[in-house]
């Protein structure tokens, strides 16, 4: 569809609107994710996909039928589906003897696979298994990544970026403070990745900032990292390239010094000091008569000098 963009001439207004909604934009919409299952899935995987769908709900598409594909071997069908539904994130669940309880998180750039990371589920507790009051759907979660590997190991770095993109929800300009009640905590520890989801209770602490108590609501996963398919550095950089129009413009005639003080050059008209309002005091106010006499006094000696 993309390579023929210029050639498709929409015949109706409606189809034109549709094509515009699919066309590349300066500021992009929220990425949608497609959630699909492979040829065989276990109970765990099915439930996990359902729970993850509920975490991402308005911005996700669920494929109900099974799709017998292996993303690591051939990603063309994934690319086809992403073009169909205009999705650029995917979550693929499968289960087989070699790789039991398998989840593949991935993202696409320009309808081609950028990153894919395969995670095996070791332990899974579903959303419905934990009896606690849940957060409403579509809550923007707070994300916390803990553990050294997320900062040092390349695969974990990409995984962090991928998970951030998957779970962060829409980017917003403001949040309601009372609405910050969902925390997703990812811990890389012991060769595993623990994903926990908590409800955040704001308790009174005596100061303005509340004290936090957490209550687990699920789903919770213990993941192990399996295969990965990471984009080459070139492609990764290309995908990050921002258009010129979005970059902030440089301000002319301003500068900052070492302490962060702002300096600017201001162009002004010449000041008329005669109209300057100064502090008025009784002693300084001019009285009309006196002024006249003073002027006469001042003029008299001048004349005298010339005569001399």
């Amino acid at each position: 569809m993309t390579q023929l963009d210029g050639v498709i001439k929409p015949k109706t207004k409606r189809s034109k609107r549709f094509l515009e909604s699919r066309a590349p934009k300066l500021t992009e919409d929220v990425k949608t994710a497609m959630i699909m299952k492979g040829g065989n899935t276990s109970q765990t995987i099915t439930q996990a996909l359902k729970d993850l769908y509920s975490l991402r709900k308005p911005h996700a598409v669920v494929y109900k039928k099974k799709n017998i594909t292996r993303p690591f071997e051939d990603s063309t069908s994934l690319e086809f589906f992403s073009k169909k539904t205009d999705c650029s994130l995917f979550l693929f669940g499968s289960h087989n003897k070699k790789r039991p309880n398998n989840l593949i998180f991935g993202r696409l750039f320009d309808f081609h696979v950028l990153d894919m990371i395969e995670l095996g589920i070791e332990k899974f507790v579903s959303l419905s298994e934990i009896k606690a009051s849940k957060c409403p759907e579509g809550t923007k979660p707070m994300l916390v990544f803990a553990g050294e590997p997320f900062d040092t190991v390349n695969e974990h770095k990409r995984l962090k970026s991928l998970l951030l993109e998957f779970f962060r929800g829409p980017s917003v300009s403001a949040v309601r403070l009372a609405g910050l009640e969902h925390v997703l905590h990812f811990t890389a520890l012991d060769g595993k990745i623990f994903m926990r989801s908590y409800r955040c209770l704001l308790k009174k602490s005596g100061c303005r900032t509340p004290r936090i108590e957490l209550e687990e609501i699920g789903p919770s996963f213990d993941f192990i990292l399996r295969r990965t398919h990471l984009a080459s550095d070139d492609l990764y950089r290309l995908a990050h390239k921002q258009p010129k129009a979005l970059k902030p413009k440089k301000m002319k005639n301003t500068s900052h010094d070492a302490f962060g003080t702002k300096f600017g050059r201001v162009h002004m008209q010449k000041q008329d000091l005669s109209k300057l309002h100064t502090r008025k005091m009784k002693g300084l106010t001019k009285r009309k008569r006196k002024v006249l006499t003073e002027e006469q006094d001042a003029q008299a000696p001048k004349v005298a000098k010339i005569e001399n």
Partner: protein
Amino acid sequence: MAACSVEELLAKAEQEEAEKLRNITVHKDLDLDFDVGNLLASDKNRIDTRSFKEQNKEDFLRSLARDNTQLLINEIWKLPSERVEEAIVVKLPQPTTPLPREKPPPKPRPPTKWEQFAKLKGIQKKKKTNLVWDETAKEWRRRWGYKRANDDTKDWLIEVPETADPNEDQFAKRLKAKKERVAKNEFNRLKNIARAQKVKVPGLGLTPKAQQSRDELARAVSVAQTSTASVGMFQERLPKEKAPKNTGKKRKFQPLIGDFSNEKQKQLELLKIMDSKKPTLDVTKAVNKQMREEDREEAAAKYKKGAGKKGRKGNMSGKGKGKGGKGKGGKGGKAGGGKKRSKPGKR
């Protein structure tokens, strides 16, 4: 007694303050990285594996999460808040973590052939009024579309021109002309798209025409001659017929052995070019570039004048050109501006 109580009170207050702060402060070796725009915190501290194995796993993870979340919440609560419809709202800064885009940034539409030409010549779009005076109907009507002014399709009578064939249908002629204009426009649109996509399009070939020029006729003959099963292999030439021109290039190779002097000459020339620091001058390219440059300058000058004063256009341009001639031979004579300028090919 009074002094003592004041001290006590102060100490007590200080303690209380410290206790309150202890509720919300968390100590970490390394500070967390925050991206408040994404509500994201990343903790780089090394996690103690031994205590993780000794303790209950879930409790350990929860306490770790609590500490990190507390730090994130502290960071969020530092931002300025405001009240919007009974809710306290915090303005988030822009997200700082770079994330890949979904699709590459949109590209500007490449200019059409006309837009390129207009830019070169400094032609600007002029806004036409929507309403035009209709002489026959004696009222203002739209320029285009249904019930338009001066609609020539609604004429019930057309005067036959003196030179035209009296039996020719003038209405059909008009209709045909219109259809041809539309078709040409569509063809140009497709060509523009093809150029934008960088696809090579086949030429039009030989289109039917009322009057074929000499070149076109020659081309038609050569096309007809080669349109046989043997691609014109056994086609006989008429007596005195010349060989067809511009039929394409055939690759020709140098003989493998022999003609050493020629080969030597070529090699030496090549070496000379490679050795010299100066780039060779492509004369036609240079001349073309120069001409384009002049055109552009002229267009820019025209544009400036059009934007500024309009009244004294003719006079001023004449004067300016005369002064700025600077011994460029032919230039002085063509002071009239765009219209009088001869074709670029003739220079």
